[in-house]
């Protein structure tokens, strides 16, 4: 099934990341999945400071150093060179995943191939071919107090990513609490997609048409507004 989509009005990845960043509270401990989610760190609202955790054993790392000044023992989970902020700490992998699994992170933000209305996430593998690689994704979906997904609302070929039931191999069961897409902000609550915000330029019917499971509301749907980035 290919959907009628409103690709004409969609947010850029930077704008999706910006929107997600607005919901990270001051002093929150946050893990950003490798790739697109890392972009969220750029958009911390003024006056707020999150502490970023990386699976390979750093709390409170900062931006990449200038080219040529990398220390390749100071990298993040995406194997990119990073820097430290004051108040950082190093620890080994078992302690790092104790932080993850033990519920000590306030927020984890991940990418997705599919998110189901019951909160199931598929983000590690699209089929049975090739070399499978899971990394820390299956750990990260458990333990953080809130697990958010940031994603395009539909795939490049127009298929829904918010679905009734995931068809790709699962990363975790019932683990996602909120999805920030290119068109909307949607909570997962009681096994249903509940729309919190949508782009003003589209109707609920248009949003529903791009979504693979019924959308619900629970109070007013706010306007999803983001700056030009």
């Amino acid at each position, binding site marked *: 099934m290919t959907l009628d989509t409103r690709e004409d009005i969609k947010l850029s990845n930077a704008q999706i990341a910006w929107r997600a960043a607005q919901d990270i509270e001051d002093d929150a401990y946050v893990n950003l999945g490798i790739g697109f989610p890392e972009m969220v760190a750029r958009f911390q609202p003024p006056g707020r400071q999150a502490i970023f955790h990386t699976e390979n054993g750093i709390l409170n790392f900062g931006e990449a150093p200038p080219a040529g000044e990398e220390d390749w023992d100071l990298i993040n989970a995406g194997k990119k060179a990073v820097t430290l902020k*004051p*108040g950082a700490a190093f620890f080994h992998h078992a302690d790092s995943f104790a932080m993850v*699994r033990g519920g000590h992170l306030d927020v984890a933000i991940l990418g997705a191939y599919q998110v189901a209305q019951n909160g199931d996430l598929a983000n590690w593998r699209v089929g049975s071919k090739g070399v499978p690689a899971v990394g820390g994704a299956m750990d990260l979906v458990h333990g953080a107090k809130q697990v958010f997904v940031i994603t395009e609302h539909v795939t490049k070929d127009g298929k829904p990513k918010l679905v009734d039931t995931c068809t790709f191999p699962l990363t975790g069961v019932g683990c996602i609490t909120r999805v920030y897409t290119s068109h909307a902000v949607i909570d997962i609550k009681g096994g249903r997609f509940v729309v919190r915000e949508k782009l003003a330029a589209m109707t609920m019917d248009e949003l529903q048409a791009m979504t693979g499971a019924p959308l619900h509301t629970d109070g007013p749907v706010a306007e999803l507004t983001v700056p030009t980035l």
Partner: protein
Amino acid sequence: MDKTVGSTADAVSAIPDGATVMIGGFGGSGAPIELIHALIDQYQATGGPKNLTVINNNAGNGRIGIAAMIDAGMVRKMICSFPRSSDPRAFTDRYLAGEIELELVPQGTLAERIRAGGAGIPAFYTPTAYGTELAEGKVIAEFDGRHYVQERWLKADFAIVKAQLGDTYGNLTYNKAGRNFNPLMCMAAAVTIAQVSRIVPAGDIDPEHVITPGIFVNGVVEVAHPQQEEELIRAGVAYA
């Protein structure tokens, strides 16, 4: 971010009746005496908190610290490995009178259960206590021809611990064997309060030397010259 708390009284003020409280230390080493005494002060002033479940390796010594909590009547249950000390009267008298409950846990199992609580591991298997009365009623499983006991995680509502340096982000170092259960308890409690000999700005503790990363700590209170249980015991001090 600033996790500094102004006083020991403020630091413990949120602990309610019926709470499960992990208290760091092994005997007097690494024991947060001042936080414990602040909790007793609160009880004397307000009648709470009471009916506490206290998790510690021991069950108090003399008339100070955890023993003084027991004397005051704040403790409903102890979870510990070794409820003996040079002067264990406070616990012994109440235990023999049936006024305090005891869950006796082998020391290594106690440590591992607390770590498991902090690490999101609801249960694990250990050879410890297999075939003994402390394994009675527990799930037994065989792995590679050997028997093991299933043990559950331990979590707490609050942990009160003693550290050496603490920065404003809650990163902690410890003093020598005063480390013991403290780093584990920081991980396993919903709210962790650390008394430290000195609070330093974030960045003053080398990230390589942090023992407890700040993510496990909610509040840090400075007690510049902490008392040592052993010295108080030898001086015959009673806290009441």
